[in-house]
Structure formats: structure tokens, C-alpha cells
């Protein structure tokens, strides 16, 4: 605790840089995933088709995908020997974002679907009867489910900022370039620097708390 407070108070530039990077990466991933998950989740919710139930099952199954597996998957694609090898994405922040988006996407889609299902169907009917097209209906219903949607976004952000296996695998924890709070924590832990690890963990949670408060404020407007 004291170490964390020291670190925060002293504004150690390296720690601040790592924290900023963690926040930026997770926020970007979460934003991208939100932009994909909400439309996709809505499309699934608002349409009935064969295999919908199975699709939802599969999405929920992907809640369980370990970060390392996502990491492996992305790695196989972007490593030199992989199909996208010549883009030189491996061991860059971009690789981490790609991985985090993939990791977070099913979670946010699943939670979007849950949130939409929670909204009274009469509300959807009312919107349709008032001439809303699919997009407008979805926008309204999402607005009505705003608390749950916010929960989905925070969950997505939380998953992205807290994951480590993926960042290690495709980011490589390169000092000054792809090191994030979680990879730093894992490194410090493996070096036996437990206090420092806990200090970094507290910084991470502090960021998450601020993000949660800010998003809640935004939602209430």
C-alpha cells in the first residue's frame, strides 16, 4: 500500500507511462469492441433465425476462452511465418489491441443480447409502431437498457485492462513499448517483487474505478 502510494505520489514517469499505455490500449480495444458488439448483438437479438439459440450458446461459450488461447490464435496469424506476417504487427501495441478486441467481443455481444432481452417487448413494438426502422428501434431499446449496457462496456474494459496472457504473448512486454500494467505485474511477480506488483495492481484498480465512475456519470445524463 505505502509503496503504491509512493509510486503514485512520486509520479514515477515510467510507471505513469505504463499506466497510460494500459488505459489507452484497453480503452481503444473496448471502444472498438463496443462499436462492433452493439450492432452485432442487436442484429442477433432483433432477428429470429434458425440456429439463433446455438449462436447465443457459442457466444456464451467464448466467455471461457483463455487469454493465452486468443493470444496463440492472434500469434499464429501475425507471426512472421503467419498469413499476416509481413505487416510486422507482432510485438506491437496494435497486436495487443487486436487480441483484446477478439477477447472482449463475445463478452460484450453476449451482455448486449442479455441487456436487450431484458427490455419489455411492448417497448420494441411501440417503437416500431411509431415508425422506427430497425436501427432506430435498436438505438431506443439500447437506451432503455442503458444500465445493463453500461455494465457490458465496463465488463469489456475490465476484461481488456486486466488480461495478461494475451499481452505477453503478442505484445511481448517490451519495456517502453508494449509493457502494460498487467505484464509489468506479472514480470515483477516472477522477479519476486511482490510489493511492487501489488502497488501496480492498486494503480490499475484506481484507473478502473475512475473509468467506472466516469462512464456511470455519462450514462446518467
Amino acid at each position: 500500500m505505502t509503496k503504491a502510494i509512493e509510486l503514485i505520489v512520486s509520479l514515477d514517469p515510467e510507471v505513469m507511462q505504463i499506466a497510460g499505455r494500459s488505459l489507452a490500449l484497453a480503452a481503444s480495444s473496448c471502444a472498438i469492441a463496443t462499436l462492433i458488439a452493439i450492432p452485432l448483438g442487436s442484429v442477433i437479438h432483433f432477428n429470429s433465425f434458425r440456429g439463433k439459440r446455438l449462436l447465443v450458446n457459442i457466444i456464451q461459450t467464448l466467455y471461457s476462452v483463455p487469454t493465452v488461447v486468443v493470444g496463440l490464435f492472434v500469434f499464429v496469424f501475425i507471426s512472421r511465418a503467419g498469413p499476416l506476417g509481413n505487416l510486422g504487427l507482432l510485438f506491437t501495441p496494435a497486436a495487443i489491441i487486436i487480441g483484446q478486441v477478439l477477447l472482449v467481443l463475445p463478452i460484450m455481444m453476449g451482455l448486449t443480447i442479455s441487456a436487450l432481452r431484458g427490455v419489455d417487448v411492448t417497448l420494441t413494438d411501440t417503437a416500431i409502431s411509431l415508425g422506427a426502422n430497425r436501427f432506430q428501434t435498436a438505438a431506443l431499446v439500447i437506451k432503455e437498457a442503458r444500465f445493463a449496457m453500461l455494465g457490458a462496456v465496463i465488463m469489456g474494459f475490465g476484461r481488456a485492462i486486466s488480461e495478461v496472457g494475451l499481452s505477453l504473448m503478442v505484445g511481448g512486454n517490451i519495456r517502453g513499448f508494449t509493457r502494460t500494467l498487467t505484464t509489468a505485474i506479472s514480470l515483477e511477480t516472477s522477479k519476486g517483487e511482490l510489493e511492487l506488483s501489488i502497488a501496480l495492481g492498486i494503480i490499475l484498480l484506481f484507473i478502473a474505478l475512475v473509468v467506472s465512475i466516469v462512464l456511470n456519470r455519462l450514462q446518467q445524463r
Partner: protein
Amino acid sequence: MSNNKPIIETTDLGQRLNGRDVLRDINLRIEQGEVFALIGPTGSGKTTLLRLLDLIDKPSQGKVYFNGTDVTESDRQRLDTRRRMAFVLQKPVVFNASVYDNIAYGLKWRGVSRENVHTRVDDILDMIGMVDFHKRNARMLSGGEMQRVAIARAIATEPEVLLLDEPTANLDPVSTAKIEELITDIIQQYRTTIVMATHDMSQGQRLADRVGMLLNGEIVQTGGWHEALNSPRNREMAKFVGIENIINGVVVSSEDNVVTIGTDDSVIEAVSDCAVGEQIHACIRSEEVILALSRLSSSARNTFTGDITRLTFTGPVARVEIDCGFRLVALVTRRSVEEMPLEKGKKVYASFKATAVHVIRRG
């Protein structure tokens, strides 16, 4: 531009929900500018039909035409058509937003400019007397206030067709009168076509030109109110339109369309083309039954005598139940009750004309 196509037409419309046939063979023609009332008991399919007309649900069978165009299938057409209509659902839900925004939604969705939305919503708020409410969250309104918002929201879009599902079920008499006035104004100003489901028969009569009666998912009768109220097709509809006297009997003689009907222990004369031996229901509206303290010499062919078993008042009218072998209900004015005077246990003569008897064959 002449337009002799009905604005809405359905052919063999049917709806199957969760394995139950909720609607069957609905063939309706609603003319431009007409006000059409849908009546029928609970669960008869009124809401289901209105949902099909508003193109919210797709029918499991049959087609819906709008101005002569089949709009049953294409999603694009369904949306465009729906935007020319408005539907006030039976249980209004309001959006978790201000009253103003609730009313503005339909306009915004149609791409109406911000200023136009503003003027239009302000007008409507004024019309429904809710100007002071515009900033309030609609979720916190009372039942009747929500209903008014729901109606306002629908008419804000100036629809060509207005579909109303029990529009005043949650409203007090004064608000009901206001809404009815609003609807009448709309009808006169915009020649809006209206299809409304209502349980309030008198409201239906006040507003609608024509009535369609639904029973178990089928339209059993369409036509004018007089016919609907006085010549229902079957016993259920008769009860439904408020015919209180429905007496089982058999035709015992028939001459020049005047039949004599034998009931348990009396005889009723009626005008009907039923043949001798047919099992029938004799229906007499309670307001057609005249009461007197002595035998009247009038043209009324049916006169019975009995004791008053119950007397109840509703506003200016009194409902009198008489036991004359069978139970007969008469509706008379409060004033006649006071003048005669009538009271429980008193013996009275009840009479009604043969032409006041509507005969329904028993199936």
C-alpha cells in the same frame, strides 16, 4: 386524383401464435376516411388483428393491402407503410425519457427537422393539456397521463390511418371526452382513417361509422351500429352487445313472417322467417320493454305480468328485473320509476312489440 381503392384491405388473413389459430379468414375493407370499430369479447383477437394491420407482426396466412398495394412481405414497404399509420397500443408503454421526447420520437424517426418537431410537439402538448408536463419523465406519470402521452405520440405524426386499441380504457370520463373530441377533430380536419378496438360500446357508437364484430378469431359480422346492436348473429354476440333478454324457445307457428315462439311456459310473438320447429333464441333489448301498472292496450303484441325482483339505478335510467316465469329486464327512466312509482315486489305489466324481438337460430 381519384382513389377508389380501400385504404386497407385484407384477404384471408390468419395468424397462428404458439400453435394456436388466433385469427382466421379475416377479409376486411376499410375505406379512406372511414372510422371503423372492432368489437368482441376478451381474447377474440382484436389486438392481434390491429398488430397485423399496423404491420408489426407478419400474418401466418393471407395478405394486407394498403391503397391497393400488397404490403405483406417487403420489409421496406412495411416500414414505409407503417410510417403512414400510427398505433396506440392497448397497454401504453412510455419510453424512459421526458414527455417531450416521448412525443418527439416518431417525428425524429421520420427525419422531421428539429424546429418542426419543436412546434409540432408543443402544439400537441397544448392539445392534450400537458404543457406543464413536458420535462417530466414519462415513467413517473399516472396511468391516465401515460395514456394521453401515448395518444399524443401517435397523432403527432399526422398519420393517414390511426389504429387505436382501447384508447380510453385508463381514462376518467372527462379525459375520455377530451380524447374523443380530439379524435373527432382529427377525423374532421385530416379525414384520418381510424380503426379502433373498443369495449365501450357507446364510445364506438359516438365515433365509428361501421363496426366489425370478432368472435374467436373470426369476423362474424360487419355493418352499421344499428344492425350490430339489434341483429346480432349469435347468442354470444347478442350478450356482448348488451341484449339482456335472451330467451330460449321453439317456433310453434309461422304466418306471414310472424312467428309464435313457445318458451318454457309462455308464448312470444316475433317477426322472423324461421320455420316451425326451429330452435331459436328470442332477443329483446331491455330498453324495448315497456312497463305499466295496468294492462296497456297498445300495439305491443307481447305482454307479461310479474313481480319486480330488483331495481337499480345508473344515472338517469333504472334497470328493472321482473320475474314473469322467465327473467325479463326492462330499462326505464328514473323519472317513470318515481312517477308510477315502481318498487321491489310490485306487480307490473311488461310488454314489447313483435318487431322488437330479434330471433337467432340456435346452432
